[in-house]
C-alpha cells in the first residue's frame, strides 16, 4: 500500500500546470485598480479559452437575452472574479477530457456529475441568499478533481475502486481507502495546492466529504457537500459511488437549509442541470477539433 501512495504522490507532481492566462488573471485581480478591459485583454490572448468562455457565458446557465460577443462585455456582465473562476474551470476541464475510460464510468459522466454539483451549488447558494453564487458554481465544478488523477494515471486501480463501490454499495471514497489507501480528496488537495488555487477551493476539494474539518471557509465545502449528496441522489451524472454518500447534518446548519426547502430546490436543480448540460458539448472531441480548426484558419 505504501508503494501505491508514493506512486500517487509522484504522479501528482507530474500532472500539467494550469495555463499561464489563469496566473496572469489572478495576478491582475490582486491589483484594486485593474479594469474589466485589462482582464479581457489578457484572456483574449488565449483564443481557445476565449472561445470557450464566450460559449459558457452565452449558455443557459447565465440566461442573458442577447448574445455576448466580446470578453470585455462578458467581464462586465458576470464580474472579474467570476470570469477568473471560469478561466480556471475551462482550463481544468480542458486538461482532462480525452482519457481512457475505467469500465462503464466515463470522463463525460464524471463531468456531468461535476456540472450537476456546480448547478446544485449555485441553486443552493441562491436559495439561502448567499451572494457568491458563481464562486460556488466553480467550486462544485472542480470539487472532485482528485478523481482525475485516478483516471489519468491509475485507470486499472480505479476500475477496481468502482467495482468495489458498486458491488458493496459503498461511497467511492470508502472503496478508495480499501483499494488504494489514498482518497480523491487527498489527491485533489495536493493537486490544488500545486496549482496554487484559492484557499476556498482547496478547502472545498479537501473537505467536501467532511466539512467539519474546514477551518477558513467552512461554508464552501459544506454547501458543495450538500450539493454533491443531492446530485448523487438525483442520479445526475455518475461520480463512482455505489450509494448516495452520507449527508453530514452540520453541513445543513452551516448552509441554512431545511427539509422544507427540498420541494422548491430540487425541481430548480433538475431544470438548471438540463439547461446547462449543453455546456459540456464543447469538450466533445469532435467539436474540440472543430473549434481548433476554426482558430487555425484565423
Amino acid at each position, binding site marked *: 500500500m505504501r508503494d501505491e501512495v508514493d506512486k500517487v504522490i509522484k504522479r501528482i507532481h507530474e500532472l500539467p500546470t494550469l495555463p499561464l492566462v489563469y496566473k496572469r488573471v489572478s495576478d491582475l485581480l490582486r491589483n484594486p485598480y485593474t479594469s474589466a478591459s485589462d482582464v479581457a485583454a489578457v484572456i483574449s490572448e488565449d483564443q481557445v479559452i476565449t472561445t470557450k468562455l464566450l460559449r459558457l457565458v452565452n449558455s443557459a*446557465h447565465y440566461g442573458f437575452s442577447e448574445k455576448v460577443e466580446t470578453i470585455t462585455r462578458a467581464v462586465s456582465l458576470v464580474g472579474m472574479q467570476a470570469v477568473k473562476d471560469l478561466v480556471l474551470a475551462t482550463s481544468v476541464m480542458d486538461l482532462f477530457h480525452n482519457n481512457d475510460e475505467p469500465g462503464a464510468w466515463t470522463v463525460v459522466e464524471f463531468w456531468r456529475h461535476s456540472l450537476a454539483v456546480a448547478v446544485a451549488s449555485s*441553486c443552493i447558494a*441562491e436559495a439561502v441568499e448567499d451572494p457568491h*453564487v458563481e464562486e460556488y458554481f466553480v467550486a462544485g465544478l472542480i470539487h472532485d478533481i482528485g478523481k482525475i488523477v485516478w483516471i489519468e494515471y491509475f485507470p486499472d486501480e480505479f476500475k477496481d475502486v468502482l467495482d468495489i463501490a458498486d458491488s458493496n454499495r459503498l461511497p467511492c471514497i470508502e472503496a478508495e481507502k480499501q483499494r488504494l489507501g489514498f482518497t480523491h480528496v487527498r489527491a485533489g488537495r495536493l493537486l490544488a495546492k500545486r496549482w496554487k488555487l484559492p484557499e476556498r477551493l482547496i478547502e472545498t476539494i479537501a473537505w467536501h466529504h467532511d466539512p467539519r474539518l474546514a477551518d477558513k471557509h467552512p461554508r464552501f465545502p459544506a454547501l458543495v457537500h450538500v450539493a454533491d449528496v443531492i446530485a448523487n*441522489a438525483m442520479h445526475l451524472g455518475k461520480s463512482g459511488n455505489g*450509494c*448516495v454518500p452520507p449527508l453530514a447534518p452540520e453541513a445543513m446548519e452551516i448552509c441554512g437549509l431545511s427539509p422544507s426547502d427540498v*420541494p422548491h430546490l430540487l425541481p430548480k436543480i433538475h431544470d438548471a442541470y438540463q439547461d446547462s448540460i449543453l455546456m459540456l458539448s464543447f469538450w466533445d472531441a469532435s467539436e474540440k477539433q472543430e473549434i481548433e480548426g476554426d482558430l487555425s484558419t484565423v
Partner: protein
Amino acid sequence: MPKKIPIRAAKVGQTLTEPVVQDAGQILLSEGTVLDHSNLDLLRQRGVMLVTIDDGDDAAAPSEKARTVSDEELKKILLEESQWFGEQRKEEFMAEVFRWVVGHRAHIEGDER
C-alpha cells in the same frame, strides 16, 4: 400568488409583486413592473439574486405525479431508490429528497410508457 424566485428562473412577462431595492435603498424596479429582456439583464448586472413575482401556477406534488405509473412499477422504483439511498432515506432532509426522486422517476417513467 407572490413567490420569491432566483433571478435565473425569472421570465419575460412575469410581474413583480414587490419592488427590487438595492442595498443603498435605491429602487431598481417598482412593484407591478412586467419583466422584459432589458430589465432582466439590468437585475443580473446589478447582482440581484431574488425577485418576488406573481405566480399562480403551483407545480404538481410528486405524489400526484406518481399516479402515472402502475403499483408494480412504483414498487420497483421504491426498491431501487431504497437501495440507492440506504438508511439515509429515513432522516428528515434525505426523506424529502427520497420522496422527490421517487415521485420524479415515477412521473418520467409513466410518461415514457
